[in-house]
């Protein structure tokens, strides 16, 4: 008789808050282990996975497009005065492309997705939890972890890197329009300068980062939703905690991965 919700021990070992934190870490660790166990076992929920890719990827495009475009323009405008002091505005395309691909596109995409996708997953699964829909799935001999968690985590892990590439292109487009308007640089010239400094390692590190961010957003959203407490308040808390925790983890992962990449570089 397996229960999905291991209960917090009633007797405190250290203090209520610390015990709760340690319990959450342990419970999260078990949740991740279960994901890696179930992801390779049939049956595979292909239709639900494709549906989630559509929801997470395609439906995020308008917000990602707007954010990426504005990021490109703003970063170009903010960088121009510093470079023009040295008469180096011709370096703008290279500077922008490196900044966008190495840092801005992965972070902007991940933070937008944490807010939009993470909260959506947390609220949806939390709502299913408190209205007993997850229990209903389980008693109808369907594995809710496989149907709800595995599909969503795989979809975020796959779609966030793709969205990052799209964000990078849109940000570069915004940057090009600003540079073209101010420096009259042609598209061909902008492209040559923008991509001449980009290395395979830049692309690889950004894809690696966004794979990790995507997994984080998916697993945190699902974990918080799956463990929502009873009532509508629990749903709100699950959605909120999904966003806050995944954003925090994204920044921690950013620091760690950047250190590793710099070491390799």
């Amino acid at each position: 008789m397996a229960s999905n919700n291991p209960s917090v021990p009633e007797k405190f070992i250290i203090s209520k808050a610390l015990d709760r934190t340690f319990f959450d870490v342990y419970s999260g660790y078990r949740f991740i282990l279960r994901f890696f166990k179930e992801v390779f076992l049939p049956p595979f929920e292909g239709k639900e996975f494709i549906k989630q890719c559509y929801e997470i990827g395609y439906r995020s495009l308008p917000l990602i497009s707007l954010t990426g475009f504005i990021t490109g323009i703003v970063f170009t405008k903010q960088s121009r005065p510093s470079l023009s002091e040295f008469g180096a505005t011709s370096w703008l395309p290279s500077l922008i492309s490196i900044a966008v691909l190495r840092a801005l596109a992965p972070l902007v995409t991940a933070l937008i997705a944490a807010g939009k996708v993470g909260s959506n997953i947390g609220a949806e699964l939390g709502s299913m939890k408190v209205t007993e829909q997850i229990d209903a799935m389980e008693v109808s001999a369907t594995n809710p972890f496989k149907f709800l968690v595995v599909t969503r985590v795989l979809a975020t892990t796959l779609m966030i890197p793709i969205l990052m590439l799209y964000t990078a292109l849109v940000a570069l487009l915004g940057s090009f329009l600003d540079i073209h308007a101010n420096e009259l640089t042609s598209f061909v010239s902008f492209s040559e300068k923008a991509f001449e400094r980009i290395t395979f390692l830049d692309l690889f590190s950004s894809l690696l980062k966004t794979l990790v961010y995507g997994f984080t957003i998916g697993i945190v959203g699902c974990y918080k939703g799956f463990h929502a407490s009873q009532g509508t308040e629990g749903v709100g808390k699950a959605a909120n905690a999904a966003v806050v925790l995944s954003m925090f983890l994204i920044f921690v992962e950013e620091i760690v991965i950047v250190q590793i990449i710099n070491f390799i570089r």
Partner: protein
Amino acid sequence: MERRKDISSVDATNKVISIRGLEKSFGTLAVLRGIDLDVYRGENVVVLGRSGTGKSVLIKIISGLLKADSGTVNVLGNEVDTLSGKELQALRLKIGFSFQNGALYDSMTVRGNLEFPLKRNVRNLSRKQIDSAVEEVLEGVGLAHAVDQMPSGLSGGQRKRIGIARTLILRPEVMLYDEPTAGLDPITSIEINNLINEVQQQYHTSSIIITHDLTCAKTTGNRVAMMLNGTFLHQGTFEEVFSSDDPAVKAFYEYNFIQ
């Protein structure tokens, strides 16, 4: 309208559920304190009791959603506590669980809700066979017209009916009803009570019905078990239980104004 139960369909030699010494606590709160219960094939057993006395916990343990602290639960010859994940899934195909609020998947239409367990548990079904199964169970609960509606557009009674239809599509041998008439008006409650009886007759199910509604208990139960403080205070037919002079039973009876 209300119908009294006959016991001709009950096979008193064939236990489908057998529970012994079942205990369950949440933290320091002991909810179940040594429950013993047998349910025979074709029998409807009503578990009556006040809110918060652990009635729903009992059926969640029977279906494997919760783990008991001690005691044994045998369902259709399987010790639920000792089953592997796959064995538990196989057993669950024979158990239908009707949730208090229907627990319909609100991102799917009624058709999607009904097809969901069928597609995942019965392989190689043609589109025609799936449609036919959906149509049959929907007609059985009198909601064939609601097939393409979303759950949000259904009334409380309709949601419960669809919830029951979703379990019936897998042809369960055992039905577990969690507060089937809670929150419903008297007329809809009677319809649900009649539906529970029809399910028993048509699908030859054995059921545990969790309720605090005495009309539901009287109408649907072959036998009633009255729960108080985590144990069964009285078991027997409705008349036997409520002929008791126990103040706790009398208070329950008088509150419901049953004559």
